[in-house]
């Protein structure tokens, strides 16, 4: 269930791994409006392959995914070819132990749903900042 968004700003690429269709739509819209090229992926089991294929600058990763949890995907990323890839984790559970687990696994940033759009965009920009800051629209 991969899908390329229509507009491709010159800035960095964001891979959004999120199974909730409406949330994915919202996040993609927000980031694209800021000039990011956004790819979305809705399944845990094939998420690592998607990371390989899209070579994103930043990954936005949901915890609750069908097939494989976001923690497993994060572990795979850190153990694989892109250990330095910035990963922003999103969770709707919002429990402390989830945050701790995400940090232990090497998540770059951890955010609880629901989030403010501004906060999400800022976080993505900060995470991508060192490598390739996107051009503001």
């Amino acid at each position, binding site marked *: 269930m991969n899908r390329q968004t229509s507009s491709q700003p010159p800035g960095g690429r964001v891979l959004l791994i999120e199974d909730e269709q409406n949330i994915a739509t919202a996040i993609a819209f927000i980031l694209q409006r800021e000039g990011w090229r956004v790819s979305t992926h809705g399944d845990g089991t094939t998420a690592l392959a998607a990371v390989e294929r899209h070579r994103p600058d930043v990954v936005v990763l949901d915890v*609750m995914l069908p097939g494989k949890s976001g923690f497993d995907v994060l572990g795979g990323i850190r153990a694989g070819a892109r250990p330095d890839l910035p990963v922003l984790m999103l*969770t709707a559970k919002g*429990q402390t132990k989830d945050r701790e687990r995400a940090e232990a696994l090497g998540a770059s940033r951890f955010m609880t749903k629901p989030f403010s759009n501004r906060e999400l965009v800022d976080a993505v920009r900060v995470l991508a900042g060192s490598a390739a800051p996107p051009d503001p629209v």
Partner: protein
Amino acid sequence: MTLTFNLLAAACLAYVAFLFLVAFAGERQAARGSGLLRGPVIYTLSLSIYCTAWTFYGAVGYAARSGLEFMTIYLGPTLVFIGWWWFLRKLVRIGRAERITSIADILSSRYGKSNLIAVLVTLLAVVGTTPYIALQLQSVTLSFGVFAAPGSDASDPAGLALWVACGLAVFTILFGTRNLDANERHDGIVAAIAVEAVVKLIALMSIGVFVVWGLNGGLARTGEVIAASPLADWTAVPGRWAGLIFVSGAAVICLPRMFQVLVVENADERHLATASWAFPSYLLAMCIFVVPIAATGLALMPGHANPDLFVLTLPLADGRGGLALLAFLGGFSSATSMVIVASVALATMLSNHVVMPLWLATRGRVTGAGDMRRVVLRARRASILGVLVMGYLYFLATGGTSSLASIGLISFVGMAQVLPALGFGLFWTGATRLGAATGILTGFAIWGWTMLVPVLAGPELLALGPAGVGWLRPEAMFGLTGDPLLSAVILSLGFNTLVFCTVSLLTRPTPMERLQAPRFVQVFDRAAAPRGHRRGTAGAAELLVMAQRILGARAAQAMFAAEARAQGRPSDLPEATPDMLERLEKRLAGSVGAATAHAMVTGITGDAVVSVEDLLAVADETAQIMDYSARLEAQSAELTRTAGELREANDKLTALGIQRDAFLSQVSHELRTPMTSIRAFAEILRADGDLPAKERARYIGIIQEESERLTRLLDDLLSLSVLESGQVVLHPADVMLGQVIDRAVVASGDTGLRLLRDPAAEAVALRTDPDRLAQVFINLITNAAKYCDAAEPELRIAVTPSRRGIAVDFIDNGSGIAAGDRTLIFEKFARLTDQAAAGSAGLGLAICREVVARLGGSIDYLPGPHGARFRVRLPRRVAEARAAE
């Protein structure tokens, strides 16, 4: 009514036959274990064998000859029963504790199981009782003679007495030696005696009433008759009275037949409490009419008439044959009951202490139990015959001339010779076997000389003394020329006691006596009685082997070595001194209990005096230990159970905590997910005023969709919470199952499913909450619509009546649920496929399960070959029961 001798004989035979029946019934009753015949009343009545023919006939004669002196014979027992109750109680307690079989047995047992004492007392009892049995034969013969026509068979006293003796022997052998009773009780005989006690009381009272109101015409006239008679002139001689009261008091304890009924036949110590007032009352009733009868007899009967027979001759002279017959039977009862019990008691003593020891000495070892029993019974029977033959011979020798009362008193004083040994023996541990033997012998000799010889011997001896030695004259020994009876009592019992005490003080008790004495003296304090040890011949080595088994090798060896050092012995084995044995026993008692320890030690030292009580104590201790360990086990089981319960509760709480955390986490996720979309799009809409209308409309649509999802979720949570808390209110109604399914199908809307239904099967009447049930059905239908993955989805609703209700199955044609997930589907938030397809929080089946449970049914997933199959089981009418909760 004229009484012929034949009629009288027939009455006697009929009466004896009746006694047989009573005795049989008594034995049957006892064999059945009924305690009816061993109550305090029967016990008291059996004591009335104190009142023999002597009392029945002789008391009147005694009163006619000596005035109120006859009262002493009643006063003695009365004082003993009222005042010496504690003494009797001790006697009975010892009798039961030591399984005493006779007066000879108790004395023998007390003085170290001495056979010398036993033989001595048996001899004394036989010699002392023989005149008494002769007295009974004489009285029965006399009473027969009253009725007999001169010149007939019955006028020959000797022949008559022989027949009476034979008859009594047969009866006694039949009931006294029928079996060898372990506790020497004779229930049949006691029952017969109790009946005879009633007969003699009624007979004597009837004669009394007849004399006072029939012959004399009232109490006042009777008083005049008494005042006019020689009885009024008699005065009491204080010394003689005291002596007679003492002797009769001693007799009621010491006479073999009294000891038999008082101690041996006693079934319950508490019966003494009743007897202590009831027996004196019986005696009072027996003597109340004696003086009126005697005075009236002296007034009305010719001078040569025998006063001993007034109870018979008075009614006969008045032509009252029936009353005379009753009196005769009363006298007959008195005589027979005494002879029966006395011969049983004497036979027990003779066979146990004379015949059996002789038999064992001549035959050597016992060959077998059965053999032994037969020998004992034969010895008993022979003894009974022997006793009666002796009584008969005495009767022939004395020619039946002496008055009844004097014969009775001879017996009394004779048996009173055992009183010092018995009385001191029960209270003084210092009393010895030699003291008892010499005391009894001394008293016996003096009694024989002063009381028995005068009856049997010729007048020269009485007048001049043996070989002319004047101070040895039987009736005036040592120059005591006063009342011969009082002299005899004082001399015999005085010397008896003096010799007994002196010899006891001068001799030392044997070890066996030392062992036995506390058992008697301290019978009420058995626990305190020292068990005692002889200086055993057994080697200390055997003791050590035994001790090692109990205490362990090292501890036992250490103890024995320490004992040996304390004794100053070079080896490791001490001498088995009593002190050492006592310490060993105490040490062992800590492990196996005192009684067992004692039994073990004495078993090895050969000092084994293990009584029935010791064995019982062992059994008691064992029982206590078993009880204790059982209680320990119960406590430990209780602890284990409690610990298990605590662990279970803890597990449950932990599980509940984990469940609650998981649930909260799930709820949080389910709430935040739609809120995330709503917030994100709300911010987008607010920030981007220039969004295309189409996009704007789409985002607003998403917000609305997510809001509805949020509402649905909250509704589900609330309804689940209500269901789980049990606060749900049901509204039961009578409905048809088909109608409920119809409603559910309609409410589910356009599902795209092809529904397959069977209206005939659905025509089932139910009492349930239709709204709640429809909610369940809707859930199952929409679930099928959501998850059925067939190209042309179908849902078949099948209804089958089951054992206690109905089953409604919802079967789709999809691929079903994977086996591993089937247990999860009814859990909260158990959404198996992805979010988009489900469109709900996964609470549906959890809610269904709760609802169906409230309706009294159940819901299960049934694995099958085709698709998912949910079965809802419903009771037909149980909804009320659950609704009432």
